[in-house]
């Protein structure tokens, strides 16, 4: 698998994503600076990592969503390349208009860093096939703005189209509908607040996140 991790000023999970993809599926991972204007056509996966791109100026992910590399991310989304946005990456994909809704400040107003148990609510996506009959997954969240929000019509649309991929068993932050991760209509862009890149080996407390990468090998 050929993968690229986009690095923005303020990204801090970019290395985690690289090591996770290498460890889980032996991927060939390139780090790509956000000022680049080309992403190779033979990429199987583009990862938008967690962190605090541009110091969360204006809104989380807003500045990164208009970085020079963004045009290439949009092009790849259109042509069907798998795109995985984790944490700040999810925020960036929402700001870029590739996923519906947005992420608000946690309802507790606190930065939340802890393990969360997830319901794998759709194991029939290219990112979740490997979960098979496993309906629960443990990963960690680490964010101040993880509170998923969209209007009621959008939430209903996501439900009707079975595009809610992960839900929190115990909602940590006020996310509407307990939503932890959603996929686009075409099924090639996944955004999620919990970190599969911090849960890819037993030594880390959980290897449940590895399945996100393993699923892509079954394409």
């Amino acid at each position, binding site marked *: 698998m050929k993968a690229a991790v986009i690095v923005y000023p303020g990204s801090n999970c970019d290395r985690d994503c690289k090591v996770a993809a290498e460890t889980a599926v032996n991927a060939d991972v390139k780090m790509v600076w956000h000022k680049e204007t080309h992403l190779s056509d033979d990429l199987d996966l583009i990862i938008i990592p967690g962190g605090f791109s541009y110091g969360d100026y*204006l809104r989380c992910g807003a500045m990164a969503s*208009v970085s020079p590399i963004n045009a290439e991310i949009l092009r790849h989304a259109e042509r069907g390349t798998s795109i995985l946005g984790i944490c700040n990456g999810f925020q960036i994909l929402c700001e870029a208009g590739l996923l519906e809704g*947005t992420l*608000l400040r946690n*309802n507790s107003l606190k930065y939340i860093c802890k393990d969360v148990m997830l319901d794998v609510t759709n194991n029939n996506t290219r990112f979740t096939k490997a979960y098979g009959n496993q309906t629960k997954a443990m990963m960690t969240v680490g964010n101040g703005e993880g509170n998923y929000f969209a*209007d009621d019509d959008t939430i209903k649309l996501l439900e009707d189209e079975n595009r809610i991929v992960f839900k929190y068993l115990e909602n940590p932050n006020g996310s509407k509908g307990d939503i932890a991760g959603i996929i686009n209509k075409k099924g090639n862009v996944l955004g999620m607040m919990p970190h599969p890149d911090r849960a890819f080996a037993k030594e880390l407390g959980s290897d449940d996140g590895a399945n996100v990468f393993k699923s892509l090998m079954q394409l």
Partner: protein
Amino acid sequence: MKIRVDVKLKNGVLDPQGRAVAHALHTLGFDEVADVRIGKAIELEVNETDKEKAKARAVEMAQKLLANLVIESYTVEVLG
């Protein structure tokens, strides 16, 4: 020319920051405060002499970047 873009959360969108500030105001004895909503004021200095043109461009900026229309609304005012 100076332009001011005000961005605020739409009604119905939870504003935890506003809620915390309301609590703090109550602590200070401002019991009449029923609700607080916090937004942003963005001032732009633009190289344009035509007011209408400048305003139209600022609206475009608000829609493309300054506001997230999922949760925020905006108003644009030419300050001159």
